[in-house]
C-alpha cells in the first residue's frame, strides 16, 4: 500500500492484518507455526503429564533381617501408591546396579535386628541425579518406613503407653495452597504451556517481520507503507491472537481435563496470557529490528525466551542465585507471567497481581514501542 491511501489508524492496522494473513496463506511453514506446531507441542506436553502424579516409582529392598517387622515394612512400601517394589535382594551391589541402570529410584536397606533397642537405622539410598523422581520416591519410602518403625520402636523400648499411634508426627497437618494433591503434573503444566508458547510465538513473530527487511534495512518497507508502525501492529496481531488463544486453550484444558481448580480467577490468568502474548511479540519485534537478520534474531530469541523457564524462579527460587542471574531473571517477561499466574492460582490480593501485570505491560510498551519507532524512523534513513 502506497502513501496517499486512506490512513486512518484502524485502516492501517487492518491493512497490516490482511497483509499478514495473505503471507500466512502463502507460507505453509509460517502457518504451521501458528496452527499445527502449537497443537502438536502442547499436545505432547499434555500427554506427558496426563497421569497427573508420578506413581509406582520402582524401589529395591535389601532385607538383612527378614523378620516380622521387616515383612511389615515391605508390605507397607508395596502398598504405597507412590511406590512399587521392583526387587528384594540380599546384597546392596545388586541394588546399586538396578539404580545405575535406572530400574530403581531408591534402595531401602533393612538392617538385621530392626526395631530392637540399639539396632542400626533403616537406610534409604535414593537416586539424586534424577532428583525429581528420586526425591519423590525417597519421601514416600521414608514415610512408609518411618511409620512402621516408629510404631514398633516404643514397644521394643518398653514404653507402649506413649506410642505415637497415628505415626511419627501426630498432630501435624499440611495444607497445600494452589496444588492440594501435590500434583507434579499440575505444577509442570502451569509452567510448560506458557514456556512453549513464549518461545514458539517469538519465533513466529520474528518470521512475520523479517520478510520486510531488504538489504538489512526496513527503510524500503517504511517508505512505501502508510503508517508503517500501525501496519506492523496489524501484521503482528495474528501472532498475539494465536499466542493468547493457544495459551488460554492450554490452561482451560489443564483445568478441565486434569480436574484442577484455580482458587483465584481463571479470567485473570487469561488476561495475564494476553499480556504475555503482547510481551512475547514486542520483544520479538525489537530483536528483529535491532539485529536486522533473522538467524541472529532467532538465536537471541532462544536466549531470551527459550531459557526463560530456568530463570523464572518457578522451580528453584532465584533469590540465592548470583546477582546477575537475579537481575536477568527480573528482566525476562516469563518471570513476571509465572509470578502472575501462580499468584492468580491461589487467589492473591490485587496488589501483587497488579505489580506483575504492570511489569508485563512494559514489554510491549517499551520493547515493542521502540521496535515500532525504529522501523518508522528507518523511512528517513
Amino acid at each position, binding site marked *: 500500500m502506497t502513501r496517499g491511501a486512506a490512513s486512518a489508524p484502524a485502516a492501517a492496522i487492518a491493512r497490516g492484518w490482511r497483509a499478514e494473513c495473505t503471507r500466512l496463506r502463502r507460507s505453509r*511453514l*509460517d502457518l*504451521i507455526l501458528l496452527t499445527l*506446531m502449537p497443537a502438536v*507441542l502442547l499436545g*505432547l*506436553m499434555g500427554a*506427558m503429564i*496426563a497421569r497427573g502424579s508420578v506413581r509406582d516409582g*520402582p524401589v529395591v529392598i535389601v532385607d538383612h533381617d527378614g523378620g516380622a517387622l521387616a515383612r511389615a515394612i515391605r508390605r507397607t512400601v508395596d502398598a504405597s501408591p507412590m511406590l512399587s517394589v521392583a526387587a528384594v535382594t540380599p546384597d546392596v551391589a545388586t541394588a546399586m*546396579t538396578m539404580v545405575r541402570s*535406572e530400574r530403581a529410584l531408591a534402595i531401602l536397606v533393612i538392617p538385621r535386628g530392626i526395631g530392637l533397642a540399639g539396632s542400626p537405622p533403616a537406610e*534409604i*539410598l535414593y*537416586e*539424586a*541425579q534424577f532428583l*525429581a523422581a528420586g526425591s519423590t520416591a525417597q519421601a514416600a519410602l521414608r514415610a512408609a*518406613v*518411618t511409620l512402621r518403625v*516408629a510404631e514398633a520402636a516404643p514397644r*521394643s*523400648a518398653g514404653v507402649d503407653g*506413649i*506410642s*505415637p499411634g*497415628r505415626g511419627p*508426627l*501426630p*498432630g*501435624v497437618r*499440611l*495444607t*497445600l*495452597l*494452589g*496444588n492440594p494433591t501435590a500434583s*507434579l*503434573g499440575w*505444577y509442570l503444566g*502451569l509452567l510448560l504451556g506458557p514456556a512453549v508458547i513464549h*518461545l514458539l510465538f517469538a519465533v513466529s513473530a520474528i*518470521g512475520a517481520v*523479517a520478510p520486510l527487511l531488504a538489504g538489512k534495512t526496513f527503510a524500503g518497507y517504511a517508505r512505501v507503507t502508510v503508517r508503517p508502525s500501525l501496519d506492523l501492529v496489524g501484521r503482528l496481531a495474528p501472532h498475539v491472537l494465536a499466542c493468547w488463544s493457544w495459551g488460554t486453550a492450554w490452561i482451560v484444558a489443564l483445568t478441565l481435563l486434569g480436574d484442577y481448580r484455580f482458587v483465584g480467577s481463571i479470567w485473570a490468568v487469561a488476561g495475564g496470557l494476553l499480556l504475555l502474548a503482547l510481551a512475547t511479540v514486542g520483544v520479538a519485534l525489537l530483536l528483529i529490528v535491532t539485529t536486522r537478520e*533473522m*538467524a*541472529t534474531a*532467532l538465536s537471541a*530469541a532462544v536466549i531470551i525466551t527459550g531459557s526463560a523457564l530456568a530463570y523464572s524462579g518457578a*522451580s*528453584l527460587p*532465584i533469590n*540465592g*542465585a548470583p546477582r546477575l*542471574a537475579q537481575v536477568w531473571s527480573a528482566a525476562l517477561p516469563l518471570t513476571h507471567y509465572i509470578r502472575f499466574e*501462580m*499468584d492468580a492460582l491461589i*487467589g*492473591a490480593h490485587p496488589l*501483587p497481581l497488579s505489580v506483575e501485570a504492570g511489569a508485563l505491560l512494559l514489554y510491549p510498551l517499551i520493547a515493542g514501542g521502540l521496535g515500532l519507532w525504529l522501523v518508522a524512523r528507518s523511512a528517513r534513513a
Partner: protein
Amino acid sequence: MTLREAFERTLIEIATTRELVSLAIASVLFYAFYYPAPYAQQAAEGMNLVVVDQGHSPLGRSITRALEASRSVHVVGEAVDLAAAEDAVLDRRADGILFLSRDLDAIATHPAAIRPGAGAMLVVNAAYAVRAEAIALTLADTLVDAIAQRGKAIDRRLPDPAGLVRVQPLFNTTAGYRDYIFPAVSNIILQQTLLFASARLAAERRRRRAAFGGLRASLGTWAAMTLIGILAQSFFFGFAYWIQDVPRAGNIAGVVMAMPLFAGAVSALGLAIGHALGDGDAALKLLIPTSVPLVFLAGFAWPLDQMPPWLATLAWASPATPAMHLFVRFNQMGASVAEAAGPLAVMALLAAAYGMIAMTMLARKAAVA
C-alpha cells in the same frame, strides 16, 4: 570431491560463516555458563515463613528458633491469627504459614490423645512445588527433632524418631539442584546447537545450489559436523563440568565411547532436516520451538516410564533422550557399559538410521542437482 576435501571444506565453511560459528561454537560456550547460573545456589534458600504461635510454649519457641537457624526457611514475622498470616501469603510477603496451637506440647507428651486441631499446621503455596517441598522438609526435620527432644525429657527410653531412618542421596550427594538440572539439560543444549548448525549448513548449501555431490562428500560433511559435536561435548563434559564442580568422570571410557554416536546421530538428523527444507531460516524456525518440549520429553523432570508408552517411544527418537540416560549414567553415576546398554544401543541405532537417511538424501539430491 573426496571425503577429506569435503571434511576440510565443511570445517572452513563453519569457521567463516558467522551464523554457523554462532550456532555451533559461540552458543555452546555461552550456554555452558548461562544455563546453570540460576541454579548456582543448588538449594532453595530463605523461603519466607510467617508463624502463628498461640501458646508460646517451650516446644513452639524451640521449633521457631530451629527454623530461623535453617538455610532454607526465613521466619519473616509472627501473625496474631491465621487470617493475618493468610494475608501475608496472599500479599506475597510470605511463602507459607506455620500455625502452632495452644496445646502444642501434647504432640510430644500425649500424641495418642491429642484433640482435633491441636498441634502444628503448615500452610504452603504448593503451586511452587520445589519451594513447598523445601519448606515442608525443613519443618518436618525440625518438628521431628524438637518433638524427640521434648519426648526424651519425659521418658528417656523413648526412641529418637530422627534416628529410625537414615537417608542418603546417591551420585549427586548434596542433592543439589544445579547438579541435577545441568548434566541432564546439557544434552539438550548440545543436541539443539548442533542440530541447528547442521540443518542450517545443509539448508543453505541446497538453497545456494552448493551442495557437495556424491556419497563420499556427504560422508565428509557428516564427519566434520560430528567432529564439531564431539568437541562441544568434550568442552561441556570436561571443562564446563570441572569449572562448575558438577559430579563427573564416573566412567570416562563410557563417555568417550558414546560421544561420537551422539554427535553422529544429531548431525545426521540436522543435515537431513536442513536438506529437506532447503532454507536455513526455515530450518531454524521449525527446529527452535521444539527445544522446550524436547527437554521435558527426555525424562529428567517427568520420568519416561510415567509417560504413555507411545510417547516414551517417540521421545527416544530424539537423540538427546538416550544421550541424557547415557551420559548421566556414565558421567555422574559411574555406570558400566552393561548398566547403560539400553540407551547405548538406542543411540547406536539412531546414529545408523539418521546417518543412512541423511547420506541417502544428500548424495541422491546432489546427484539430481
